[in-house]
């Protein structure tokens, strides 16, 4: 349990610190895989059909489908490899550390229903780190990855509340996310077709070039 949570947070650090989009997407896929193991561990049963179904669904969507689509939209929009953050990578790593310290500072760990004391701060720090990624990156693809991390944090929050979380609700959340990424993938493609780039800072200028 602790191992999974710490692995998830570490993969977020990796996304924050790495300078290449492909390794970011791989880390996000890795994070999805770790996250999909979590329901089974939380329920403490490996063969219970409900959690098995949840595992398969989450794994397929978070670790295979979404990374695949991100890679595809990267290829189609012919995006360059390097990340150009608005804040330097050093600073965003340090800010990430600060955010985690705040999330773990103990104020928020008193939520009821948590199976392990680590899970609420971990979920909170994931949400905040995802938000940090979302605001500190320029390219649309990296912003999608930030959104993914944020959504994973929400999923983790869900973990704290479930004893019997109806499967339809969870599937609904996952499908929501998938549709979101799907739409963003298409959007990226269209933005790229229309503007020749996907740099979101340039989208605000009204020049007709």
């Amino acid at each position: 349990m602790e191992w999974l949570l710490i692995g998830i947070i570490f993969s977020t650090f990796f996304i924050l610190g790495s300078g290449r989009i492909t390794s970011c997407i791989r880390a996000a896929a890795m994070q999805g895989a770790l996250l999909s193991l979590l329901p089974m561990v939380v329920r403490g049963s490996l063969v219970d059909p409900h959690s098995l179904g949840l595992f398969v669904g989450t794994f397929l969507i978070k670790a295979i489908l979404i990374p695949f689509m991100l890679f595809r939209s990267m290829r189609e929009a012919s995006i360059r490899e390097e990340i150009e953050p608005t804040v330097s990578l050093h600073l965003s790593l340090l800010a990430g550390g600060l955010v985690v310290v705040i999330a773990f500072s103990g104020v928020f760990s008193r939520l009821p229903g948590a199976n392990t004391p680590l899970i609420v701060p971990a979920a909170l720090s994931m949400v905040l780190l995802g938000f940090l990624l979302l605001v500190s990156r320029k390219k649309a693809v990296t912003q999608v990855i930030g959104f993914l991390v944020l959504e994973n944090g929400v999923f983790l929050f869900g973990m704290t509340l479930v004893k019997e979380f109806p499967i339809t609700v969870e599937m609904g959340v996952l499908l929501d996310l998938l549709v979101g990424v799907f739409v963003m993938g298409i959007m990226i493609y269209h933005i790229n077709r229309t503007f020749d780039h996907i740099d979101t800072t340039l989208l605000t200028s009204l020049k007709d070039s």
Partner: protein
Amino acid sequence: MYTWAVHFFLLLFLPPFFLGVIAKTKACFAGRKGPPLFQVYYDLYKLWSKGVVYSRSASYVLRMAAPIIFSVILLGGLLVPVVGASPIHFEGDFILLAYLFGVGRFFTILAAMDVGSSFEGMGAAREATFAALTELAFFLIVVSLVAMTHSTSLSGMLAWAKNHFLWAPAYLILAGAFFLILLTENSRMPIDDPTTHLELTMIHEVMILDYSGPDLGLILHGAAMKLFLFIALLTSLFWPPTETSFWLALGSSVLKMTGVAILIGVVESANARLRLIKIPQLLIANFVATAFALVIILMGKG
């Protein structure tokens, strides 16, 4: 008194062996035969039987530097628990250890600047920058260990680990972070290449270009001893000997240290050196990881 003598003897005569192990591992990976295991001892002997040449532009600082660096590292070595408790230990001795290494680094940098070569000045600047970044992570690691063990001396931390060693996640993060600090402090591969003498990106080697004869021997021996001390700290803090007999514990510790040396060799063979501008980022990531481990420990759930 007896363990004191053994500790001193180990400190003086064991370090070059680990350099040999690392070189041998790297040679194995490259498919070569490599230099013999005891090559560094031959090198030291050769250097000791030579004379010294000083640059005409060098002042007394360069003449003083090598003995000071060596003795400071030797003094630090007396604080490090290699097997069981160290000869000298008191509350807060890790601060003295960190600053003894700091004094050694200070004199290395000062002597490099003393010669007046811009090339050596560049190495000095790099060393100072990276040292500043590793020191942060080093102190955070020690603070985490203090928080875990409620003891502020290195020997006390070791005694705790002897009783309560466990594969807690935070513990492994700390060990990994300490390994990276070991690589940085001893200018090993992903950070700096200890064998090159040609490129503009080297850090430690460029600062010792002006030493010769016994002085160079002292520097080389001091560097080997520093590496040995870091390896000893890593093994005795994170995987201490559990044997009760002194000699058995010594044997198992030396085996573990050889294992760490082989690990360093593997890391050096598997990684290319990082670009110089990427190194601060790696060190900051290391610092953030240790901060994370500290936070987990302070939550009491590590």
